[in-house]
């Protein structure tokens, strides 16, 4: 593994300070048992798949992405609430990844996690006093019950539950949703941690309550000297709250760096798409141009080759990693937009898509009319809804089918663009050294030559 390039992602003063958290090539894969997938024998959901960044003291670092992007797994991996399968997480210089749970114990007091679902962190059978005070007992920070109650009451006041004492003997079910989320925050902060990972802490709350909880989190950060990693799918909240943001897509950063730079001038098509998609409470901005990607985030079990975003990317081109299954998808997408006769005719040529043999850089259609299909593909390929055909090297006619071969595209590496890190070939084709698939080495090497950062 190469030495990671400077992980500032920004040119701000942050670089001159010592990071509180240093994340390098962090990976968390979940093995899948009994899997029949062809690509290697190591079938695993690659939830986090090689992420590097630093978090500086007092900063709010946002992890933003759609469901399935790996943001929650990444957040949990930082605190070893799930076990990373590779890379390192240094907290105050000490790598947490190899530590046993026993060695983690004394550190847990300093590392807090705020869960999205209050019911997951508040035991309904415990009073609020017991539940919020529980970490104090676990860590042996109080010597008596009354000391614990005093500490809890004080923390409840801090999170805006007045008077704190009046809540001690109530149960979580006795309070409103907004108050419950305050309790979760109180429980996370009762041991006076330094580093807090908050996973969608306001997503379940009404707009009118959301603002209050966010305000509280910012207030507590100032008062208690906290450093946050804030996990959210909501870019508006992220923009308001975070100093820096990492946009995650299928376990890797598409783009990360200074919040204002990302929002003012996104450099990755995925970041741009996320921003465009946000509905704006301003009727004057209706009908503005949106570069909406097609489809949805795919399965992390088999991430797309090359750039992981390429099948959805509105501006993908020949080098982005087109592969066999992309041609199948393009045909299906085309067929949503043609009349029934055309569909039947073309399906007749291509044959049942379920019978197509899909490989990494090849797809074979067992067609009944191979020469007709080959001619049609050569003529119509460029008109398919994606630019998949731009990467086709060869359309080969056999006696009982057509084989289409693709030029492999390398997985883009992060590069410095306009003051932030971006993993996209639009800024010059790069090769990620640990990419899941860079295809044919010769093609990767030729792709590396011009405009490469390495």
């Amino acid at each position: 593994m190469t030495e990671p390039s400077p992980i500032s992602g920004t040119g701000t003063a942050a670089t001159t300070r010592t990071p509180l958290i240093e994340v390098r090539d962090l990976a968390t894969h979940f093995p899948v048992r009994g899997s029949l997938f062809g690509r290697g024998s190591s079938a695993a959901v690659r939830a986090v798949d090689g992420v590097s960044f630093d978090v500086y003291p007092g900063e709010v670092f946002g992890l933003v992405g759609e469901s399935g992007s790996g943001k929650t797994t990444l957040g949990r991996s930082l605190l070893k609430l799930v076990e990373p399968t590779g890379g390192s997480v240094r907290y105050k210089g000490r790598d947490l990844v190899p530590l046993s749970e026993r060695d983690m114990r004394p550190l847990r007091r300093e590392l807090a996690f705020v869960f999205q679902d209050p019911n997951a962190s508040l035991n309904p059978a415990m009073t609020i006093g017991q539940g919020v005070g529980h970490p104090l007992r676990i860590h042996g920070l109080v010597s008596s019950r009354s000391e614990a109650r005093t500490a809890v009451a004080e923390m409840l006041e801090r999170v805006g539950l007045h008077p704190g004492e009046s809540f001690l003997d109530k149960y979580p079910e006795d309070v409103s949703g907004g108050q419950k989320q305050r309790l979760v925050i109180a429980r996370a902060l009762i041991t006076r941690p330094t580093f807090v990972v908050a996973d969608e802490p306001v997503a379940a709350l009404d707009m009118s309550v959301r603002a209050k909880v966010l305000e509280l989190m910012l207030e507590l950060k100032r008062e208690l000297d906290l450093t946050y990693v804030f996990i959210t799918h909501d870019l508006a909240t992220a923009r308001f709250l975070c100093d820096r943001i990492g946009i995650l897509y299928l376990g890797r950063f598409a783009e990360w760096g200074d919040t204002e730079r990302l929002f003012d001038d996104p450099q990755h098509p995925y970041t741009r798409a996320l921003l465009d998609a946000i509905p704006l409470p301003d009727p004057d901005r209706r009908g503005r141009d949106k570069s909406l990607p097609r489809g949805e985030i795919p399965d992390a079990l088999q991430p797309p080759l090359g750039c992981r975003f390429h099948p959805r990317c509105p501006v993908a081109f020949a080098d982005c990693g087109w592969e066999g299954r992309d041609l199948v998808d393009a045909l299906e997408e085309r067929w949503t937009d043609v009349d029934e006769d055309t569909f039947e005719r073309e399906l007749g040529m291509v044959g049942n898509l379920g019978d197509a043999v899909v490989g990494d850089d090849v797809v074979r259609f067992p067609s009944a009319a191979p020469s007709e299909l080959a001619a049609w593909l050569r003529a119509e390929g460029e008109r398919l809804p994606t630019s998949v055909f731009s990467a086709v090297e060869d359309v080969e006619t056999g006696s009982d089918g057509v084989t289409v071969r693709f030029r492999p595209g390398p997985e883009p590496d992060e590069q410095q663009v306009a003051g932030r890190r971006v993993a996209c070939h639009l800024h010059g084709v790069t090769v990620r050294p640990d990419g899941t698939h860079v295809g044919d080495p010769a093609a990767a090497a030729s792709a590396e030559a011009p405009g490469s950062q390495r």
Partner: protein
Amino acid sequence: MSDGPTFVGDTPTRTAPVADIRGLRVGYRTPRGPLWAVDGIDLQIAPGESVGLVGESGCGKSSLGRGLVQLLPPGAGVRGSVELDGEELVGASASALRRKRGDDIALVFQEPMTRLDPLMKVSSHFIETIRAHRPGVSKDEAHHMARTALAQMGIPPTRVDDYPHEFSGGMRQRIMIALAIVLQPKLIVADEPTTALDVIVESQILDILDRLRRDESVGLVLITHNLGIVAETCDRVAVMYAGRIVEVGPVEEIFRDPKHPYTRGLLASTISLETTELHTIEGYPPDLIDPPPGCRFNPRCPDRMPHCTQIDPVLTPVAATGAHQAGFAPGAHQAGFAPGAHQAACLLYPGADGSRPAESAERAEGDSL
């Protein structure tokens, strides 16, 4: 770009509404007495018009949506009138309602998987629905209709015989919408249709709904807590609070110049990309078993005046322009209701201290369920 058939502007359309709601109340029994989740609502929806229903959780927007299609839990009480294409739904027989649902009015819910049978192919859902409503349609014809409706929603014809679990969340919602429109209803009620979806898929689905109601002239009631969605996809917005509409009117006017303090609070507390400062509405929505006297918003209102605790305000025109003159139903004005107008129920505006005509009769009947 508001080229939808709204009621405002230079050329008001005077077509009959697809849905005409008058004095609607929806109540539930509770151990402490009746809870009127919807408490006297007038709203009309024109063909091809998209109306957003917004408010905090518990303001009654989902109950209104369900009241509109008469899909309520047993024991729920409904008063007032909901006319769909001239036909009264309140008090209609179960079989008449079943026919109406699907034929004329369709529902799209938040979680599509709860509405799709995991053991049935997607195409079978269509065939079953179509043949229940159109017994003369053959299976082949129904399959063909399914393919067309699904393709319109971006589901490839190669996948119509797959099972629901083989689709992603966004695709399932597309299937639900295809299923809702295959019989070409006149009104779609969509209750938080994108809340479970990511922002990009949400945007795709909203585009689909918007295209539908424009191309097919379907009336759309979009229930959402997200004001951004309303601003982007609706012609009009009705802001609900404590079971009532407190402000209604063209989206452009209400977002530019909100009149009701509650609407102002909602807009201010919305976190958008431009947010630099957080705002909140103090307090919580009231207990609807025992709502506060006078204006129901008065305990939380930053503009509260002494008489706000005594007078229960009614909707009154508040627009500076003549927009409120564009009513479509003859007689609408006599009833004191101008459908396209910007109105607010707040004593800051003259006329809001009038009586509630639609409801006074209901009150005489009593509050019991």
